[in-house]
C-alpha cells in the first residue's frame, strides 16, 4: 500500500476537497494503483541530474514598467457568484 484511506483524507483536506465514503475508497484504490506504477521511475539512477522545470532556454522576462488601464471593476465583478457592486462577497471569515 502506497497510500492509506487516512492519507487520502489528509490530501483531500489539503486540496480543499470533500470526499464521500465511496470516493475515499475508490480514490485510495486508484491512487495506489497509479502510485505503484510511478515506482517505475526508481529504476533510474538520477543522482546529479538537474531537474527540468522549463524546457526552453528562457530566463527572466522583463518589460518596461508602464502604468496601464485596468479592467473596469464592473467587468471584473460580472462573473462573481456574489458581490455588492464594489467587492466580492464571501461567507463571514471572522
Amino acid at each position, binding site marked *: 500500500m502506497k*497510500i492509506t484511506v487516512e*492519507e*487520502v483524507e489528509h*490530501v*483531500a483536506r*489539503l*486540496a*480543499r*476537497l*470533500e*470526499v464521500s465514503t465511496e*470516493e475515499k475508497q475508490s*480514490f485510495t484504490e*486508484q*491512487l495506489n*494503483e*497509479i*502510485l505503484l*506504477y*510511478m515506482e*517505475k*521511475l*526508481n*529504476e*533510474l539512477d*538520477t543522482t546529479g*541530474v*538537474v*531537474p*527540468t*522545470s*522549463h*524546457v*526552453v532556454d*528562457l530566463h527572466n*522576462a522583463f*518589460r518596461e514598467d508602464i502604468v496601464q488601464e485596468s*479592467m473596469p471593476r464592473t*467587468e*471584473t465583478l*460580472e*462573473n*462573481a*457568484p*456574489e458581490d455588492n457592486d464594489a467587492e*466580492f462577497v*464571501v*461567507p*463571514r*471569515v471572522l
Partner: protein
Amino acid sequence: MKLYDLTIHELRRLLDQGETTAEEVTGTIYERIRMLEPKVAAYLSLAEKRAMEEARSWDKKGYGDTTKPLAGVPLAVKDVICTKGIRTTCGSHILANFVPPYDATVALKLKEAGGILLGKTNMDEFAMGSSNENSAFHPTRNPWNLDRIPGGSSGGSAAAVAADECIAAVGSDTGGSIRQPASHCGVVGLKPTYGRVSRYGLVAFASSLDQIGPITKDVTDAALLLNVIAGYDQRDSTSVPRQVPDYRENLLEGLAGVTVGIPREYFVEGLVPEVERAVRQAIETLESLGARAIEVSLPHTEYGVAAYYIIAPAEASSNLARYDGVKYGYRDREGKTLMEMYRKSRSEGFGAEVKRRIMLGTYALSAGYYDAYYKKALQVRTLMREDFLTAFKQCQVLVTPVAPTVAFPLGEKVDDPLQMYLSDVFTLPASLAGIPGLSIPCGFTSEGLPIGLQILAPHFEERLALQVAYNFEQNTDFHLRRPEL
C-alpha cells in the same frame, strides 16, 4: 464540391475570386451543424448570430486585404480558450456560466486575421482526458464510428473538423490533446514548440506543458493557422521572443537529403499490428520520396507516462486552486464558513478525473513526498529531453505512431484511469521535452478507423515537421477521405 468540405486555402481562393460568400459558407456550415450535432456532439456552444453578422460584414468589406489571411473563414475554438462575451466552460460545471471579460491572445489573433468564430468545442474537463468522456456536459462521438471516442482532450475540435462542421479549428495539447484526437479522427493536428504560441487566456492545466495549436483538414491549413497564432506575447512571459517564419514557405521543398529517425522504443508490445503496419508503410512512402530512414533510440521513452502523470497533476493541483467560488465559477450556497464554501464549491464543481488529478498532484507535492515524486519526475524529464537532443544529431525529424491503438469504444477505459493514462504513451515524451509534434492521417484499419503518423521535430522547427507531412500528404490520399454521416 460542397462548401463545408473546403479547407482554409480553398475557401480563401473562392472568396478571393468571388465564387462564394462568407455568408453562404457560414450558413451552410450551421445547417450541417444542426444536422450532425445530434450524432457527433462536437460543440458546447454556438455563436450563430454573431458569426453570420461577421460573415456578412466580410462580404461587404471584400477580400482585397492580404493582411487578413482568415477573412471570412468559419472556425471552431476549443472551449479552454477565453473568448470575450462568449461562454467558456473548459468542459466543467465549475465554469458552466463563465463569460470571459477578455479574449485570449489566440482568439484575438484569429479575429484580427479575419476568422469567424462558429462556436466552442467540447473537451475533457480542464483538458484532462484522452477520450472526451470527461466532459461535464456530454461525450463527443467519433465521426468515423459513433460508438467510438474521438480522442481527447481536444476531441470536439478534431470531430468538428472531421465531420466538416467547421473549416478548421484550434485545440490545446498538454500531453497529446491535439495529436491524439487528430489521429483518431483522421485530420491534421500540430502541437507547436512550448513557447511558440501565447498561452494568455488559455485556461491553465499544466503550465509548463500547455500549448495551443491548429487542427485542420490538411497540412497547408496547419501551416497557415500557425502563421496566424504563433509569436511572442508580452502577456505570456513564457512565450519566446523569436521571429515567426512563413510556415508555408518550405512546404514545397522535397525530401531529398532529409533523414528520418525511427525510434525503436515506439514499436513495442501494445502497438496494435494494423497501426504498426500503416506507420511502417508511411515510412516506406517517405523513403520512396527521397528521405533516408534510420533507426534511433530514445531510451527513456518508457518512463514518460510515470513522469508526466506526476508533473501535470502537480501543476494542475496548483493551477486549479483558483476555483474557490469567490471571483467566478460555481459557488455552493450552503457552506456556513469560508472553508466550507471552498470545499463544497470545489467538490460539487469538479468531476471525478479532475479531483483525482488534484489529489494525485497534491500528494506528489506534499511534505515528505516532493523529492520522491515531483523532483524525481523533473529529473527524468531532463533525461527524456536529452534523448531527443541526442537523436536530433542524427536526423532532422522523428516518425512514430501517435497512439498504440485506434479510437476505442466509448466506456472502455472510463473506469480504469491508469489504462487511460497509458494510451498517451507516444505523445507524452514530446510534450515533456517541449518539442513540436504533428499528427497526419496515414491509413485506415479494416474497420475504417483512421490511423495517425506522428512527426516530431527539434524545438522551433515546426517547418520541418510540416515539410515532411506535406510531402507525405501530396503523395497519399488519406486526408481526402471523409466519414459517412
